[in-house]
């Protein structure tokens, strides 16, 4: 059996996306900036894609800026808000400790440039508390950036409430919605969002393309200077095939969102129940307020990379927050942010199922995770010490 359970890392492109892209490469290959008809045809496709994307999130087409993906959108959103803040002497930014590195590393840069950053606690359940945002806001706060859903533990933040608080204080609110887009309903009006990042390859679109939503009246700072594409806010000939593929993928995801979410949530909970039967294992992040496809566990006494390799041998593609899988010495900053200690954070497993995952596959995953964990524990000195009482269980 081959089961791809790493949809949070990337997704397989949908047929709709591929079918939409092919004509852009074979026939409508013109440069949207050219005045002749082949160019203008490409321009039409580009603008139709913009309108389609905008419609899904309740935005106006002019508020959508196409980028090379989620990272670029995050960078540009934060840089733009910081630039605005700087001009009015506001240099305080509020975020969380478990943002994606595209946000965290940009914040680090901004700190070096004189900004002050407050990171909100995400608590053991992986959820930001609106009242804590309220308390952290200051006169000189220029931006609040909180991800819509976390990429590792899948917890879904109370975005609408956070946005409302920001709006009441006249502070810009950005959300990295890379993991949520196409999977959860998002309405930038109702959700009080000023800036939002998304990436096509997380919703069955192509890699290397995404978008930034910027509410009308929020001026953007360019990261890329050059030609006047994207109304002067991002230079470079537009990646028309990818943008068109993204729009097709998003339209399809949005149309099937509710049915997909219901089915995936059932399977997710089946996995959580089944894997939760393993002794000394704990679910990471709130059990209910999480993405429909996200399952993330810590297992005591084992290390995550070896678990991934065993699962790969059994045809299951998954991921882990272990240091060994990141090439760094520390385990996932997300697991540390929710209070998991290093020892157990190394033993984490993330399964992110897709729309086409079946019950049979879920059961196969459960069975194999159980066997692999038991096997690795059978020769783990850490597990031996825990079982003999020499050290005590954390989970």
């Amino acid at each position, binding site marked *: 059996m081959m089961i791809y359970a790493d949809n949070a890392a990337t997704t397989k492109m949908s047929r709709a996306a591929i079918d939409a892209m092919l004509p852009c490469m074979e026939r409508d290959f013109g440069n949207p900036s050219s005045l002749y008809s082949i160019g203008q045809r490409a321009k039409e496709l580009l603008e139709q894609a913009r309108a389609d994307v905008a419609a899904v999130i309740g935005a106006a087409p002019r508020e959508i800026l196409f980028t090379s993906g989620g990272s670029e959108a995050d960078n540009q959103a934060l840089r733009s808000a910081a630039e605005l803040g700087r001009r009015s002497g506001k240099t305080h930014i509020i975020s969380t400790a478990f943002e994606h590195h595209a946000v965290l590393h940009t914040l680090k840069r901004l700190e070096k440039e004189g900004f002050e950053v407050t990171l909100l606690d995400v608590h053991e359940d992986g959820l930001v508390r609106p009242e804590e945002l309220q308390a952290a806001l200051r006169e000189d706060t220029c931006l609040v950036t909180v991800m819509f859903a976390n990429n590792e533990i899948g917890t879904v933040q109370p975005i609408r409430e956070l946005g409302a608080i920001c709006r009441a204080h006249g502070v810009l609110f950005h959300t990295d919605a890379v993991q949520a887009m196409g999977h959860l309903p998002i309405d930038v009006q109702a959700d009080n969002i000023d800036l939002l990042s998304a990436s096509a390859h997380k919703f069955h679109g192509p890699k290397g393309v995404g978008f930034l939503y910027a509410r009308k009246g929020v001026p953007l700072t360019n990261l890329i200077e050059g030609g006047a594409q994207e109304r002067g806010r991002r230079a470079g000939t537009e990646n028309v095939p990818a943008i068109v593929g993204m729009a097709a993928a998003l339209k399809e995801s949005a149309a099937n969102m509710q049915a997909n979410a219901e089915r995936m949530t059932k399977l997710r909970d089946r996995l959580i129940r089944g894997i939760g039967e393993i002794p000394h294992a704990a679910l990471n992040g709130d059990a209910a307020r999480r993405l429909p496809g996200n399952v993330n566990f810590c297992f005591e006494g084992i290390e995550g990379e070896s678990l991934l390799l065993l699962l790969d*041998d059994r045809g299951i593609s998954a991921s882990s927050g272990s240091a*060994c899988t990141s090439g760094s010495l520390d385990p996932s900053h997300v697991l540390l942010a929710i209070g998991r200690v290093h020892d157990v954070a190394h033993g984490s497993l993330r399964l992110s199922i897709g729309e086409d995952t079946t019950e049979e596959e879920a059961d196969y995953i459960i069975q194999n995770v159980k066997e692999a964990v038991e096997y690795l524990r059978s020769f783990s000195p850490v597990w031996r010490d825990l079982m003999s009482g020499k050290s005590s269980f954390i989970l």
Partner: protein
Amino acid sequence: MALYSEKVMDHFRNPRNVGVIENADGIGEVGNAKCGDIMKMYLKIDDDCISDVKFETFGCGSAIASSSMATELIKGRPVREAMQLTNKAVAEALDGLPDYKMHCSVLAEEAIRSALEDYYRKNPEKRPEA
């Protein structure tokens, strides 16, 4: 391209000499759970030879493979040869490790050295002259 060589995967999938030795002559444990790798080596020594060796490892694929390979390299060998085992020899026997995984082979070398130290501590008369 695969992350690991076939050799590494073979030793990861079918680790040699897994387990514990009751009444081992030397036991060494190195690493810590905080960093994500712990190796424990058990040695049985007869006539200045490693007559048996077993390991337990908490760690990534290359940590398990490195422990397994290290046990193979010293099993049946004279103690003084085992003392000379280097991480490089372990890594080479595994047809190489990715750069950022070399520390796994270092840990295997240290685990064996630590088990031998334990043996010498218990049997000071066996310790070779410096």
